[in-house]
């Protein structure tokens, strides 16, 4: 595998993330017993593991590594790395001998049933370790890592930029004696979504059995799953001028299609200034909404059409605007729901009490009984006491039903 053959041997060989590399080597060089551990986090294929391995080699550490393929229960962690953390290596007394560097990779995939007690064991390891401990994760904001974060300095790794990927691929082609069109390398760089390992694998797969690689030899290099966040998804969809591009963005996005539908709905007026274009966009979006309605529960075959209609409403038709508009990243429906949450909760508890006393369901109580209760309370203020006693409603519930504002407290 080329990913193994061209594995970085020194820190400078690790491509990209210069600032992260710098932070890591400064941390490693200044580490002393009791110092915080380093948590390297970032998407896969950006050089987290490669950096730790290269740094261990370059700085003379004996690397003790546990990754997702090892069972990482409390007992396993204590057995494998616990001893190494408590001691310096056997030949540490000999001048020039290696020190230990403990590396726990992919810790966000750690905490299943198989890894019971793993977090506690890692915290214990960090606290009593006499050797530097490095942790790596794809997503440091995982709630299950919360208890670990206070013992760590976090170092963020970004996706590798396409020009850097292309530079490395060019070098590898040269070393492999492979003649490649620069367009091919650019295509691989673009489709890798910042995952250098994926780009290397793509190049090796395409170059298999060839000494010359032309653009025409490559039918399609599939786009990697990029896991785009809300802001990036919206930006790229609104900038897309063709449906295929918008569909690729939607497939790579973290947002589900229902939320995306709401976000496109809220942001269309900021993106499309032409009234006719805007009305056509809303027309397509409402057609998509009809299809989404039919899909719920059944007719899943319509999903593809609904998504295409939804995305086609957002495509950029005219010339691109000089300045990107500020987009709303939270659907207004969610904001409204959050604002009215306490009111909805109150309504639910009233419906529950009314349903229980009237021997009916909550839904029927809400639909058929509450409107009449409202009218009774509005027209006959004296009835409030009897109603509240009979149904077990408190003052707040009566005030809500009668539509009276709560007066200032004395």
């Amino acid at each position, binding site marked *: 595998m080329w990913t193994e053959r061209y594995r970085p041997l020194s*820190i*400078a*060989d690790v*491509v990209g993330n*210069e*600032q*992260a*590399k*710098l932070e890591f*080597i*400064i941390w490693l*060089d200044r580490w002393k017993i009791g110092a915080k551990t380093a948590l390297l986090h970032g998407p896969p294929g950006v050089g987290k593991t490669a950096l730790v391995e290269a740094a261990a080699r370059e700085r003379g550490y004996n690397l003790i590594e546990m990754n997702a393929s090892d069972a990482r229960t409390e007992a396993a962690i204590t057995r494998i790395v616990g001893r190494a953390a408590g001691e310096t290596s056997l030949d540490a007394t000999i001048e020039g001998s290696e020190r230990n560097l403990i590396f726990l990779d992919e810790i966000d995939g750690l905490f299943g049933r198989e890894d019971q007690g793993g977090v506690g064991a890692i915290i214990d390891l960090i606290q009593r370790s006499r050797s530097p401990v490095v942790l790596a994760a794809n997503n440091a904001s995982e709630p299950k890592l919360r208890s670990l974060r206070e013992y760590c300095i*976090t*170092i*963020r790794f*970004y*996706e590798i*930029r*396409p*020009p*850097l990927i*292309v*530079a*490395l691929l*060019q*070098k590898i082609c040269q070393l492999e004696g492979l003649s490649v069109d620069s367009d091919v390398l*650019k295509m691989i*760089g*673009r*489709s890798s*979504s*910042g995952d250098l390992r994926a780009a290397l694998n793509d190049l090796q797969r395409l170059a298999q059995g060839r000494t010359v690689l032309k653009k025409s030899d490559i039918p399609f290099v599939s786009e990697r799953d*990029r896991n785009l966040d809300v*802001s990036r998804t919206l930006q*790229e969809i609104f*900038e897309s001028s063709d449906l295929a591009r918008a569909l690729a963005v939607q497939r790579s996005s973290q947002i589900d299609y229902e939320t995306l539908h709401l976000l496109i709905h809220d942001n269309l007026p900021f993106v499309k200034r032409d009234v006719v274009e805007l009305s056509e966009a809303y027309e397509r979006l409402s057609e998509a909404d009809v299809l989404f309605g039919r899909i719920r529960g059944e007719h899943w075959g319509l999903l593809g059409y609904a998504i295409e209609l939804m995305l086609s409403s957002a495509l950029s038709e005219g010339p691109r605007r*000089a*300045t*990107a508009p*500020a987009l709303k990243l939270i659907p207004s429906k969610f904001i409204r729901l959050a604002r009215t949450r306490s009111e909805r909760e109150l309504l639910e508890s009233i419906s529950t009490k009314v349903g229980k006393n009237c021997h009916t369901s909550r839904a029927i109580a809400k639909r058929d009984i509450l409107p009449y209760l409202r009218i009774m309370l509005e027209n006959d203020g004296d009835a409030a006491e009897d109603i509240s006693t009979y149904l077990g409603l408190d003052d707040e519930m009566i005030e809500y039903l009668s539509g009276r504002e709560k007066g200032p407290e004395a």
Partner: protein
Amino acid sequence: MITISRNGFKLPYLGKEKFVELMRSGIAYDKARGLFYVVEGGNPERAKATLAEILDDEVVFSQTCLVCKRDFGCADCDYRISCPTRDVPLFCLCSSCRERPNLYESYHIANEAFLKAASTPIRKRGVQAESR
């Protein structure tokens, strides 16, 4: 559109609230130089939005070419659409350096020099300069 240099920029008086908001979004302030600068690992989207509000204009962060140290923007880049870190202030390669025949070697040398210079303590760097 205002291009913000990653190496430091000045801002008008912000007031406490905006200042705190900027600090939380990954912008730091060097009191001695009176300059704000972008910290990697911050939240560039949030920083951009706050700066745009302060400066009342669209804001983009400049990129720095690791090889020639020139600042440039993402607007004219070939990879603008597909770049996963577009507009995030990081090191990159500018369009003219990308044409170099031994690009990887140039990048490697620059990378090595950057790591060496930045990881050497300032006092030690001074001593080295004097001894030269």
